């Protein structure tokens, strides 16, 4: 399966009468976007705002971040099984508005999640501060149930992202990149000397605001299975996970999965990137056993030499992570796990809720309990008064001047467990 990604670089975003992309600027018709959101009668009003890199803007509470893409050649459309028909995607050509994103915000439940600061200390911890963001603030109708609100907001994000992506359909990309995955037998013939490596991508799947969808299927209802890596680039996996801002994988993370990207970069050089095994993180312990059994079985079946495993979320996924690691290692396949840590505010506590001696190669996205100070910014998009009751915030987090003292976990993407982070330590 072969996919060409065409990057149309976006350096600025502005409101205009007519939506278009011209000379690296994304012009957006506010009215058109509002109309798309309000097609859903669950919303009574919608505000559309811009947030650009370096501006004194805080966005909170963030639910999802989505990159605008459009399928210009090949079967299917972006977000198959969700918005477009359930065609197998991942081949042909896809254009990307690189440097732009749609950010959804909203108070689905009383306790809150997720800050993106466009400048200052906080901006260094989130990759989304470097994007030209179109932020949606959607007001639900009275009495809308949390499940319906979550779904409506998620779909508003997809629809607006597809609307913007469509603007890139007939554009000539500034840069293109091609990704190809051979069949198992072709891969063995092409790279007989190279180690066979796959990626085990763990998906959050535990209930309201903790879900992930694959071709429209709730991941908790699926057995462990396989995807071509390029299917993910066309939106085969989308996020309905609104909890644990710092280490949830937004839809943007899935589309731009850095493990997939880096494995492709080494493909045919130092390793043979065989494919992606997707597995869930269910609440039931028997489900955890079954899903990790299948991860290990597929890894063995594919004749792998090595596996990278990334997890999503806090607490019980540590158990899935260790089960996957241990069972795959038992098959004689080397593993590297990618996680983050809740090591206490001083970093001295046990980082994960589970452990095993076979987990001897670990990459960390950072300590989510680390306390940070976020300065007051000129403008807040979304709902500013929720800082005290935001995950990682505490009584008194929000100071009178608008500054915030909180744990790193308040920031969207700060300790991402795919390794999609900007900061590193030596």
């Amino acid at each position: 399966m072969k996919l060409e990604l065409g990057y149309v670089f976006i350096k600025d975003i502005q409101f205009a009468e007519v939506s278009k992309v011209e000379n690296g600027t994304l012009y957006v018709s506010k009215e058109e976007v509002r109309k798309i959101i309000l097609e859903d009668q669950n919303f009574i009003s919608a505000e559309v705002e811009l947030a650009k890199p370096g501006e004194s803007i805080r966005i909170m509470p963030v639910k999802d971040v989505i990159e605008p893409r459009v399928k210009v050649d090949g079967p299917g459309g972006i977000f198959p099984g969700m918005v477009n028909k359930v065609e197998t995607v991942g081949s042909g050509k896809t254009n990307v508005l690189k440097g732009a994103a749609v950010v959804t915000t909203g108070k689905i439940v009383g306790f809150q999640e997720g800050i993106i600061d466009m400048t200052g200390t906080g901006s260094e911890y989130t990759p989304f501060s470097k994007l030209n963001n179109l932020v949606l603030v959607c007001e639900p109708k009275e009495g809308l149930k949390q499940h319906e609100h979550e779904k409506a907001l998620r779909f508003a994000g997809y629809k607006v992202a597809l609307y913007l992506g469509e603007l890139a359909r007939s554009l000539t990309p500034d840069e293109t990149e091609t990704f190809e995955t051979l069949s198992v037998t072709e891969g063995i013939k092409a790279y007989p000397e190279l180690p066979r490596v796959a990626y085990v991508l763990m998906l959050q799947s535990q209930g309201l605001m903790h879900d992930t969808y694959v071709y429209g299927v709730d991941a908790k209802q699926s057995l462990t299975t396989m995807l071509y890596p390029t299917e993910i680039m066309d939106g085969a996996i989308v996020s309905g996970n609104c909890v644990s801002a710092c280490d949830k994988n937004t839809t943007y993370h899935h589309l731009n999965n850095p493990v997939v990207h880096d494995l492709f970069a080494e493909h045919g050089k130092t390793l043979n990137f065989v494919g992606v095994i997707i597995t869930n993180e269910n609440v039931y312990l028997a489900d955890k056993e079954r899903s990790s059994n299948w991860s290990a079985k597929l890894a063995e079946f594919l004749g792998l030499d090595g596996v990278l495993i990334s997890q999503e979320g806090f607490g019980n996924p540590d158990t899935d992570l260790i089960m996957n690691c241990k069972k795959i290692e038992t098959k004689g396949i080397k593993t590297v796990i990618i996680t983050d840590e809740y090591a206490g505010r001083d970093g001295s506590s046990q980082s994960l809720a589970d452990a095993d001696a076979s987990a001897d190669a670990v990459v960390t996205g950072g300590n989510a309990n680390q306390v940070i100070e976020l300065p007051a910014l000129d403008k807040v998009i979304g709902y500013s008064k929720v800082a005290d009751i935001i995950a990682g915030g505490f009584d008194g987090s929000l100071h009178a001047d608008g500054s915030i003292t909180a744990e790193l976990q308040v920031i969207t993407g700060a300790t991402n467990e795919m390794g999609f982070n900007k900061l590193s330590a030596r």
Partner: protein
Amino acid sequence: MIITNNNTVYEKYKNDYNINFINGGFKDVLITTRDKIHEGYELLTHPLSSSIKPNETPYKSIIISDNKGNINYNSLIIIENSIIAYDKFNNMKVYNNYSEKIIEDFKLIDLTVLESALNT
């Protein structure tokens, strides 16, 4: 058997499942579960289900086996690690003056996470 301190779970399922309702906090649910595991019950759901941190939500529901046998060491390791994780978070100050609306939302999330296990 469901061990819970969430009255929404209790009210919804009291006629369908054997429920051990705990009039206490998150930690009390963990300790009761640990004691049951010591008696030979098997842990069926992960005590740290949901990504909401244990120093944020006051509510927790855990499913264990209805019947007891020999002590299950996997269950024991998971519950002990969960108690360690709970204590780590509980040592860190958080907001706990929740409004009624937020309390109800925490109960709802705990319920849906539990139901994701009951329905599989």
